[in-house]
């Protein structure tokens, strides 16, 4: 029986290692400084990189964070601190539903909300789509962590003559900040690799990002574009892009876990 379980565990881990090894094997040959510093070269020319896509991804993630983190944290605080009303039950249910909505649907949503009215693909639309994907992760982590703060800590604040919202903000929320950062970083890791919602919001571009209301390159979309192209050197670039993406998400996850370990909430 135990052997079966170990077998299953190995089976579950197998794809992770094989994907990582294969991406390394295919991507490492193309991993030069150039990859991070230069623009893509036209087909037929040697060299070039995905600097615009790396920068574009960073810009999109920043935009997504600017919307997704505050909204997500505020939602989580509401659910945890004022979470016994009908409204909050509905909100909690919707947050769960939203987490399960396929990301391409969220892309279509952002397309109809931003791209059609603005008349063009843009970083804004891409950032908004990613933010919507981030919100449930951040909101749920925040809610779960705030619920771990014992009631008597809140009461100690109230008993000290501190108003309820200040207790929430200064004692409860600040006390859980390192944990909430974990949720935020997991949310970031999740959206970093999202491709579908960017296809028809941020679109993609071969140039440096110029303005936030213009189409913008991103790593996942660039990988997709290059991988489906018929050119051998583009395939190589796509592999390297994939490696960079995987490493980025790995590092984000590992850092998060390390922070979480260091700031593990004291057992009450």
């Amino acid at each position: 029986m135990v052997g079966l379980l170990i077998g299953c565990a190995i089976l579950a881990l197998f794809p992770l290692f094989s994907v990582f090894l294969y991406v390394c094997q295919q991507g490492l040959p193309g991993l030069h400084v150039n990859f991070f510093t230069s623009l893509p070269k036209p087909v037929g020319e040697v060299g070039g990189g995905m600097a615009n896509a790396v920068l574009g991804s960073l810009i999109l993630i920043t935009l997504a964070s600017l919307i997704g983190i505050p909204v997500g944290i505020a939602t989580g605080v509401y659910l945890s601190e004022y979470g016994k009303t009908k409204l909050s039950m509905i909100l909690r249910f919707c947050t769960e539903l939203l987490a399960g909505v396929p990301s391409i649907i969220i892309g279509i949503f952002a397309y109809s909300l931003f791209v059609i009215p603005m008349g063009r693909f843009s970083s804004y639309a891409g950032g908004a789509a990613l933010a919507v994907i981030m919100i449930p992760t951040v909101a749920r982590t925040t809610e779960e962590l705030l619920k771990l703060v014992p009631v008597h800590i809140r009461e100690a604040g109230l008993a000290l003559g501190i108003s309820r919202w200040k207790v929430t903000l200064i004692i409860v929320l600040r006390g859980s900040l390192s944990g909430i950062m974990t949720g935020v970083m997991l949310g970031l890791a999740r959206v970093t690799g999202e491709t579908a919602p960017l296809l028809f919001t941020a679109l993609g571009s071969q140039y440096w990002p110029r303005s936030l209301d213009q189409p913008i390159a991103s790593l996942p979309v660039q990988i997709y574009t290059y991988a489906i192209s018929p050119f051998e050197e583009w395939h190589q670039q796509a592999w390297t892009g994939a490696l960079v993406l995987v490493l980025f998400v790995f590092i984000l996850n590992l850092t998060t876990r390390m922070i979480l370990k260091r700031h593990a909430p004291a057992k009450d």
Partner: protein
Amino acid sequence: MSGTRDIVITQTILDAKNINAWFGSVHAIRDISLPVEKNTVTAMIGPSGCGKSTFLRCLNRLHEEVAGARVEGQVLLSGEDIYGPGTDPVAIRRKIGMVFQKPNPFPSMSIFNNVAVGLRLAGMGNKALLAETVEKSLKQAALWNEVKDKLKAPGTSLSGGQQQRLCVARALAVNPPVLLMDEPTSALDPISTAKIEELLIELKKEVTVVIVTHNMQQAARISDRTAFFLLGELIEYDDTSRLFTNPRDKRTEDYITGRFG
């Protein structure tokens, strides 16, 4: 309520009048009146579930923070009704401090900030004055010598007994005339308990203390007056020495002699 008849109270600081309290439909406190004399330690004893903690939480309007909870009656603090119309519970709680059963320093706050936070949020910006008040409060709580070299360490890094004294210092920092304590030593070892008890006897020179305790010996050791609660009612309230040696109510006698509870 026959019990309060003989007590001579010269200066009442906190005067609870006809307090009734509910959790949803459960009537937890039944018409309790209890005057507290200034600069004394008043103990509330009784078996589990008798309502002593609930009553204590009515005295700083903390009871109403529980979902579905309700209070009726008056509590006069120096003559002013804390349940009066337009009275802000936040302002009331600055005047009536509280220490809880479990030591509960604020997580991820230093020792210094744990004591300073109440003052800061009450608007004290003067850093020198803040540091001075923190030191004074920690001294009052008999913790200063143990923590003066590590004020920046997290409050939760202290031992249980130290944490509880930190909570006392935190409550004292905003200079409340009354301090409520809800079984403050029930989670502590005997040595830490003894320290808190010594502290209380010292504290009553400046603060009026109302303490809920499970421990009758503790009530006998530290309090001037004792109130005995049973099933949400105040059975007897008298000078501690008299209540323990010559109780008037049969139920009090049964409880203190260990026949139930």
